[in-house]
Every structure is written in C-alpha cells, then in structure tokens.
C-alpha cells in the first residue's frame, strides 16, 4: 500500500485541493475544470489494488494483458500567487456495497493523501462536495463552508456567495459531511493542517439525480478562484449547465402542481426560511424520481 510519485518538483508551501466523487460530482467537476484550465501536471498516484476491486480486464489472444483499477491521482501547478497540489480520486474505497468510504480503508487513503501534502510542505487543504439544500434549481447555488479553525471561518465569510454551515436554517447544531470529502477534513485538522471544505448547494429533489449539477460546481470553483487569486474561464461549465437545465426543466414539469407550487415558493423567499417539501411530497419524488430521470435521458452512471 503506497504512493507512487512520478516526479518530485520543488513547491513553495502549496495548498492542496482534494476531492472524491459524491452527489452530482460537484467537487470533482469543479476541481477537474480547475486542473484543465491551469494545465496541471501529473505528480503521482496512490496504488489502487489495496483499495479497489478492478473495473476492467484486458485479455489479448488468450493472455491477460492488464487489469484496470479506479485511479487516485495527484497533480501540481506552480501559480504566481500560490503553488498548488491537486488530488482527484475516481472512486471512494468502501468495505462492501456502500457508495461512501468509511472505516479502515477510508482512513488509510485519507492519510496517504495527507502524507503527500506534508511531503511537499503543504499547510492548507481544501476538500469539496455537495450540500443538499432546501433550495431551487433556478437559484444560484451558494457554497456552504466548514473549516478547522475560527480564523478560517472569518476568512471564508469574506467571500461572496459563501455561507458557514451554522448559518444555514436547521443546521445550527451542526451536521456531517459523509465519506472521504469529510473524513479528509477531519484528519487534516488532526494532523495540523488548515482545512476548508466547500460544498455547492444542490436542491434536495435533485440529490439522487444520475447527472452532474454544474451550477454548483461553478459556485465552488468561483470561491476557489477567489482563494487562489486566479481567473477562470467558466464557459465549459456554463454550457454544461444549459444542457442539464433543460433536462431538469423537463423533469420538473412532471412534478405535480402541488409539489411545484411548494418548491417555487423557495425562489421568492430567497432561502431565508425555505419551504420544506412535505413527507408525502418527498415520498412521491423518491418513488418517481428514477423514472423521471430516465425520461430525462441522462446516460450518466449511478454510483454502485
């Protein structure tokens, strides 16, 4: 079980941004877009076989040529303002059929990621994910933030469209961040890193959708760009958002008028105290959502 580094560049106190797949892949898409724009270079990877069951075998003329696993890769980029380490995991290691990692494998992987951060002198670690919220898809997703220290909370509050988790209606007493995007945050704190998690809002009724939610990825990326003091071209995300909006609008039209009415109220009250859908509505959406999304025509893979 280990780390393979392809090279060992000299980096000046880099920040690390790390992410694994989760709801609507909000964090992964944000970081993937960032990496593409920055032209980040490959740095290394975590050996996969201790963490994952293989996903593809390649046999040629009766000889097993290779076995492919989900990758967990590191990248880096030297920026004018700040050097950067990036990490994207294609899958969360689980002990069985769960989607989100937990237990010893999750702990081991999170520590390996932080080992690399430490090795390159990193002091701050960002993770990213989704915040399932009582919001509406017509509203710009906010970014919920959780950090490891009070002074970081103050810093985070200085950015537009960012809200601390404690300021969200119904989360005064706290909440939780499931899987490795949360666990890394906790372990980073334990190991003395500054840790910040940025979670893009996704409406509760879309949280099981088998397609990405690029509007939330964009919101996350905007905050990251502010932190890093860099310019980002959002055109690709905007184009993706237009396509997804069409699918969502089509599905939304199929909701009953009562549900739509309640959800539409969220737009006008600007999330100050949004209307919760009733248990009955929630049940209806859960029962019908897969069918509705299928009609929406997405080919995205459900995590399994």
């Amino acid at each position, binding site marked *: 079980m280990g780390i393979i580094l392809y090279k060992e560049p000299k980096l000046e106190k880099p920040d690390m941004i790390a992410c694994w797949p989760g709801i609507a892949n909000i964090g992964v898409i944000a970081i993937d877009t960032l990496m593409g724009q920055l032209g980040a270079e490959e740095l290394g990877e975590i050996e996969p*076989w201790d963490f994952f069951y293989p996903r593809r*075998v390649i046999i040629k*003329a*009766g000889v*097993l040529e290779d*076995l492919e696993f989900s990758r967990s890769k590191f990248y880096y980029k030297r920026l004018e303002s700040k050097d950067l380490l990036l990490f994207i995991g294609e899958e969360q290691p*689980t*002990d*069985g059929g769960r989607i989100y990692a937990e237990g010893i494998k999750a702990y081991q992987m999170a520590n390996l990621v932080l080992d690399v951060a430490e090795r390159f002198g990193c002091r701050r670690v960002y993770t990213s994910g989704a915040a399932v919220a009582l919001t509406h898809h017509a509203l710009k997703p906010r970014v919920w933030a959780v950090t490891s220290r009070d002074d970081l909370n103050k810093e985070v509050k200085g950015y537009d469209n960012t809200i601390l988790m404690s300021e969200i209606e119904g989360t005064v007493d706290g909440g939780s961040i499931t899987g490795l995007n949360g666990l890394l945050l906790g372990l980073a704190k334990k190991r003395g890193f500054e840790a910040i998690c940025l979670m893009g809002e996704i409406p509760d009724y879309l949280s099981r959708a088998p397609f990405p939610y690029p509007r939330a990825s964009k919101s996350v990326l905007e905050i990251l760009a502010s932190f890093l003091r860099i310019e980002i071209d959002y055109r690709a995300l905007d184009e993706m958002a237009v396509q997804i909006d069409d699918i969502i609008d089509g599905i939304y039209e199929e909701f009953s008028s009562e549900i739509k009415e309640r959800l539409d109220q969220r737009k006008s009250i600007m999330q100050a105290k949004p209307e919760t859908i009733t248990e009955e509505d929630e049940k209806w959406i859960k029962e019908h959502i897969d069918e509705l999304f299928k009609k929406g025509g997405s080919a995205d893979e459900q995590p399994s």
Partner: protein
Amino acid sequence: MNSPLKFSWQPELQRSSLVVGWSGDASKLGAKVTDYLNRKLGGQSFCEIEPVEFFPLGGVAIEDDLVQFPESKFFLCPRQNLVVFSGTPPSYQWYKFLNLILDTAEHYCHVQELHTIGGMVSLSAHTAPRELMGVSNSPGLKAALSHYKLAMGLDYETPPGQRPTLNSFLLWAAKRRNMPGVNLWVPIPFYLVPVDDPKAQRRVLEFLNQRFDLGIDFSDLDEEIEQQNQIIAEMRHSFPHVDESISMLESNLRPSEEESQRLVIETEKFFREKRD
C-alpha cells in the same frame, strides 16, 4: 493483528501446483471440481484463512435449508504434489485475500503454477460439448499449454457496467509476482446453473488429470452425467415446452426471455423433486 492464515500443519513440498476453485461461480463449478479432486486424491486440509477481515459476518446465509458460512481452505494432495484451494469469494479486502492465497502457495508449498476454475453462463444446450477455454498470465505458459485441448485465443475487455472476475484478479496478482497461471473457463448451459453440470466438471478434470498426471478414474462422474442426461430426457418428455426450448438451443436458436426463464425454473424444480 495476528495473521489470518491458520495452519493446522505445514506441508513440506519442493515443488507443486495450485488449483483454485470458488463457491460462487456458475453451477458451483469451481467448488465441485476442487471437492472432487480432494475426494479422489485424498486431499488433506492444512491451512485456512480466517474470515473476519474479509466477510461481513453480520449473520449467516441459508441455502437449501443449510447454513452457509464462508470457508477458505487449503488442501494438500501429497502424492501428486497438488495444492487445492477451495473458498468463498471475499466481500472486501480482495487484494489482501488473494495475496494470502499466493503467499501460502509460494512460501509454504513452492507452487510453480496456478490454475483457477470458473464456470460461465452460456446460451447453449446441455447436449453441446463443453469447450474448455484458457486465459494465461504468461505467453510462456500459453505456449506450454498449446498441445492440450484448450482454446486459448480469447480477446476480451470487461464491458461497461460489469467487473472482472475474482479469478482474473488472482491471475493478475500472480503475474505481479511472476507466478505463471491460467484461468480455466467452461461454458455452463444457463438452465444448469442452479443445478450441477457434471459434464463441465469432467471437462476441467480431464484437463487437470492430463496436465498433472493424476490417474483419476472418472467412472463415477460418467455415471453422474448419464443420470443427469436421463433426468433431462424425462423432463423433456414430461414438459413439451421444455423440450421445445432445449430443441431450439440445440438448433442454435435462442428461446425468448420468458421461455428461457421458464426453462431455468422448470429445470431447478424438476431436479429438486427428483433428488428429494
């Protein structure tokens, strides 16, 4: 943590081969073949892998009114220098589990060659011959096996949405430590998946018998094949729709999904009644 390997005794072997079969494949082919080898060759269990790290153990499964509990055991057939591993596929920590098999094989038994057994579901009739297919992890072993009746020209990539078999994972892990190995695959007619397929068992065993010069007399298995053929003939006679579906398969035609499902259910039911 203590090693999950529990030895009851340690074999002394200078050179051996390993045969691996799992309980989870089509028609339980792997488990049936390894059981047969142990029975015929006097295989003695010398080591097992403790289940706690690899299985959920949140209860037990029941199959045919019998409690099922994960078992992962090594047997030694001393006269033939053959090591047999028979096990339940682990639920997690796959790589660690597979390496425990290979560690035991390599360090305690000096295994030179790995053979795994797997059944795969086929849209064929039970009357069709069972072709034995091989996938090796080394061109050298592939060449060495060329004079056996073994189809070894497969090109394959796992289709989207599916995962490789545990045997492929094991073969790859063996390759990483330069242990040559071959996965042996036999197509099992889909309606025999819930029951036994002694014909498929015989096909694999014939190969192993020849490869390791085991000197096995297969008359008991031949009798079993004959009995199964009689039961199926009786079933065909009793149920015209079953006969029709099997006849279609014999003519290389594909019955409808509904007919196929019915054939599976009727076959399982008929065999159960015959054996009760």
